[in-house]
């Protein structure tokens, strides 16, 4: 399965990924039109000590969000975890159980959203990253790889 990984050493924290993600999911081509719809990003720049960490859905193999979903809207597919929006009732169970904090709540619409890898195409966040800190890799075995460059000492500190 393809997954997005982050190199924490080269992320500048510029939020280009957030912007590209929000635009991609706004249903509009132009940024100006998209802004009017108050789109929600599905990747979020978080702080990681002195560094930055863009966080998005890791498409866990044993995903708690899938079990938590009361309508069965959230299911694992061959392309990763997807929400069938027409079946979602916005209870927020998936948001609550996600260990990564990768599901976003949109207070305006009272709905929830997470990374769908921009459908079948290239994730726009990867395209938009100016330093190549975000990359798309093919990786079946390791659901835990999300932060690519992370020494053991950095994890524990």
């Amino acid at each position, binding site marked *: 399965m393809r997954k997005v990984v982050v190199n924490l050493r080269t992320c500048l924290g510029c939020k280009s990924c957030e912007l590209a993600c929000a635009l991609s999911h706004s249903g509009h081509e132009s940024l100006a039109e998209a802004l009017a719809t108050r789109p929600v990003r599905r990747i979020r720049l978080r702080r990681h000590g002195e560094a930055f960490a863009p966080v998005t859905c890791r498409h866990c193999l044993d995903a708690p969000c899938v079990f*938590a979903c009361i309508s069965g809207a959230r299911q694992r597919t061959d392309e990763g975890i997807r929400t069938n929006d027409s079946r979602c009732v916005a209870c927020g169970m998936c948001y609550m*159980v996600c260990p990564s*904090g990768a599901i976003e709540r949109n*207070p305006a619409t009272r709905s929830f959203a997470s990374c769908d890898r921009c459908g079948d195409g290239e994730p726009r966040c990867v395209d938009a990253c100016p330093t190549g800190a975000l990359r798309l890799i093919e990786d079946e075995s390791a659901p835990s790889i999300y932060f690519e460059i992370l020494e053991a000492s950095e994890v524990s500190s």
Partner: protein
Amino acid sequence: MTYVIIGSSAAGLNAAAAIRKADADGEILLLTREHARHYSRPLLSYYLAGKIDEEGLLYGGGDYLNGIRATLLSGKDVARLDVYAREAVCTDGSVFPYDRLLIACGGVAEQPEIPGVDLAGVFHFRTLVDTRAISATIERARVCVTMGGGLVSLKAAEALRERGVEEVHLVVGSDRVMSQAMDAGGAALLTKRLSENGVHTHTGESVEAVFGEDAPGGQGRRVRGVSLRGGRQIECQMVLIGKGVRPDLSLARGAGIETEWGILVNERMQTSVCDIYAAGDVAQAHDALHGEARVNALWPLAAQQGSVAGSNMAGRDAIYPGWFAMNSLQVFGLPVVTMGLVTARQEDGLEVLTHVDERREVYRKLVLREGRLVGCAIVGDTDASCLVGLARSRVDVSSFKEELVLSGLTDYRNVVTLMT
């Protein structure tokens, strides 16, 4: 291999999916006493509100069971188990032999013993049949009273208001709504939001009797109102019973399976009888925050337990990690997340941190034991992410507890351990 699953809700459906993942050929039979398809019980309030239709009630859609090649037989009420012949025997005389059996029959609603509960217009709100009956009489109901102020009553109240019922009165025995899963501070915000939306809360009260009147056209007796213990009467045309559920242990006890509050299971969801498993609202399974086996009748736990049971039934080794009480919902647009030992107080030897912002209608409470998160109540438009993960992974949050209670997780370094 024949797998028989008693029940067709969270535990049963997820067990069936897990079995199919591990066993491509086995026969999977789900038996339900209800005359209904594989609907999701927590969606009933959305259905009552008119937000989804009957197709929308079906877990994972109408084709879900076809997709995992499982067969649901409705109207099959299992009366007893013959653990020596390895058969489930139904009230209609039909017999289902099994190689592996899962008891996922859930709970039964508590029935209050007061006069008048047999009148027309008094309903439980637990099954699709209940919900259709409520829906069919809703037009006549200007005022509705719910007995109980738990989560089901709150969601029912919201649905009734959306369907045009003018007033809903929650009659609550304790001092607040959601007393099992919410503390006083969070409940206060909820009560405010409810009353702004025509739902009135009567705490420390109980319904002593439901009184009736003759329905027109000789249609028998129907609800006219309720009398409360404090002496007050409320005129109403509908009463909902929401006094909670308890595990349905009749089958297990009849079969000599060990029970306590629920059916006792180990970390593989096996009961005390060979090849019989239990999961969901009927099971008493390990709870990591309480450190003991508990009945937690909640969807995410039932689904996880069902999946673990299904994997083990089909010969894979799966271990239930001991999930704990957790819930997320929105009540009239007010988001609520609760988890674990949420009603705990400082006096219980636990550390309690709270943050209240009345203007923004935000309430945040964290409960820590030895630096680790063991409970939370988060109400309002505020960050509730990662808290279940932090509790689940037993992360020591003491170095960032102040920011955690104020605004939620800010430094992602603290959750990297959750992801490995």
